[in-house]
């Protein structure tokens, strides 16, 4: 693209905020009540991160990978692609992330989770809790209807933030690149739509990534899987 410096974020906004929110709303209504089991799975991920144990990393990785694929299919490909031609690329990135998490967390059992032993660990837990409960409540506080708010395992931002929290707990900065990139893309979209919470996903992602990089050698080595 020539003269790229003359483009603003608004030039890449293909739809109105109303259209986007109606799309999310229609999607949430279509999949209801799947939100309940995904939130339960989110709680399982939070407990795995909190308590740790022999299989905690594998359980969390499996749940997150399945939900990343579900979001890739149900949100990006089935819905978002109807208003954004870039959505199939987002879906592909989500599948890549899912496969990566399966390989590193489930197959290799390389995620060392919980119990929390310091401030960074508690920040990781707080990020997961924020993704599960804070994001929907923030959406409501900003005047969005319940079907328009972010939900873990259903919409991409809450799913990415919970994943970042889990990966921060596991000190897996290499696995955080795509979720952090998504948060940047989403933040840019929200910024272009003049959403007041536009900075939440990118700032949270940047902080999680920075903390993971800064403390990646401080957690004890992975327990043997068997």
């Amino acid at each position: 693209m020539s003269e790229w410096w003359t483009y603003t974020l608004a030039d890449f906004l293909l739809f109105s905020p109303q259209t986007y929110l109606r799309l999310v709303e229609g999607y949430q209504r279509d999949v209801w009540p799947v939100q309940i089991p995904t939130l339960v799975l989110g709680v399982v991920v939070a407990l795995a991160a909190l308590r740790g144990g022999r299989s905690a990393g594998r359980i969390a990785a499996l749940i997150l990978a399945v939900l990343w694929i579900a979001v890739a299919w149900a949100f990006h490909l089935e819905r978002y692609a109807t208003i954004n031609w870039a959505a199939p690329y987002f879906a592909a990135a989500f599948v890549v992330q899912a496969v990566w998490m399966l390989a590193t967390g489930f197959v290799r059992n390389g995620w060392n989770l919980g119990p929390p032993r310091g401030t960074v660990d508690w920040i990781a837990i707080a990020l997961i809790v924020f993704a599960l409960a804070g994001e929907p409540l923030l959406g409501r506080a900003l005047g969005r209807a319940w079907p328009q708010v972010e939900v873990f395992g259903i919409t991409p931002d809450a799913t990415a933030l919970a994943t970042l929290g889990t990966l921060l707990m596991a000190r897996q900065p290499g696995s955080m690149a795509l979720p952090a990139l998504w948060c940047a893309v989403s933040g840019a979209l929200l910024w272009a739509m003049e959403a007041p919470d536009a900075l939440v996903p990118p700032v949270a992602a940047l902080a999680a990534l920075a903390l993971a990089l800064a403390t990646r050698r401080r957690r004890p080595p992975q327990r043997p899987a068997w």
Partner: protein
Amino acid sequence: MLQRTVVDAARRRLLRALAAGGIATTLRAMPAFAQPAGLITRPIPSSGEALPVIGLGSWITFNVGNDRAARDGCMEVMRAFFAAGGRMIDSSPMYGSSQDVIGDGLERLGKPARLFSADKVWIAPGTRGPAQIERSRQFWRVPRFDLLQVHNLLAWEEHLPTLLAMKSAGRLRYVGITTSEGRRHSDVERIMRAHPIDFVQVSYNVADREVEARILPLARDRGIAVIVNRPFREGALLKAVQRRPLPPFAAEMQAGSWAQLILKFIVSHPAVTCAIPATTRVDHVRENMAVALGPLPDAALRRRLIEHVERA
């Protein structure tokens, strides 16, 4: 041979009768789509065909995906547009679902004969252009486009020969290029001088007047029609000026709103063929189309409007 000639003649008569019947049916079915008297039009320089000075854009506003209620809203906007005498609807493969939403609406409105379909090709490399154009045509549900433009000059060296060949073959009526927000104006000028294009699409309004210096005069010299996009800077210009009351001279222009004032400024430039404001609201499309009914400002009023906006 004789038998075949007789059959062909009979078939021609039948087709003429069907066509006449079809037209009559269309006219009966869509009495509201007749052109209102006094609508201001401008000729396309390369053909003389008249176009109303207000068209309909689809950037952002018609990209509503599969939302049925929103699609119904877009169809109502198109219905009001045609009822007010509108002709040109402009879209692009870049605009998400807009092409399909337009095609869906056109079909449900009975494929208005007034339609002047303006679309774009936006893909690289240029070898992929024909496939994209065909996909776009299927979305629009039209037999052929009236106008195809190279969107933002992307791969224009490859697309332009394709479009000109389509025009020569009778599969396209007009060829154009587009840019927006003042980008690549030197390339636009170069193409306007060197290639037989019918249309150029640029951004122009009372606050963004760069094209007045070279592109608009060149369009007049070369006999190229001008489509104006982003007349309200995607709403930002209206937001900026609407804090102030309308200037007293708005009454002289019969402009009842800032939107009408800005559109009147744009289409009063003698080189401009039409402006293509986009909207999701029926009342706004009617307000926009009313611009093509009232008087347009002369040079003195245009200057006063520029001064008024620059003071704002």
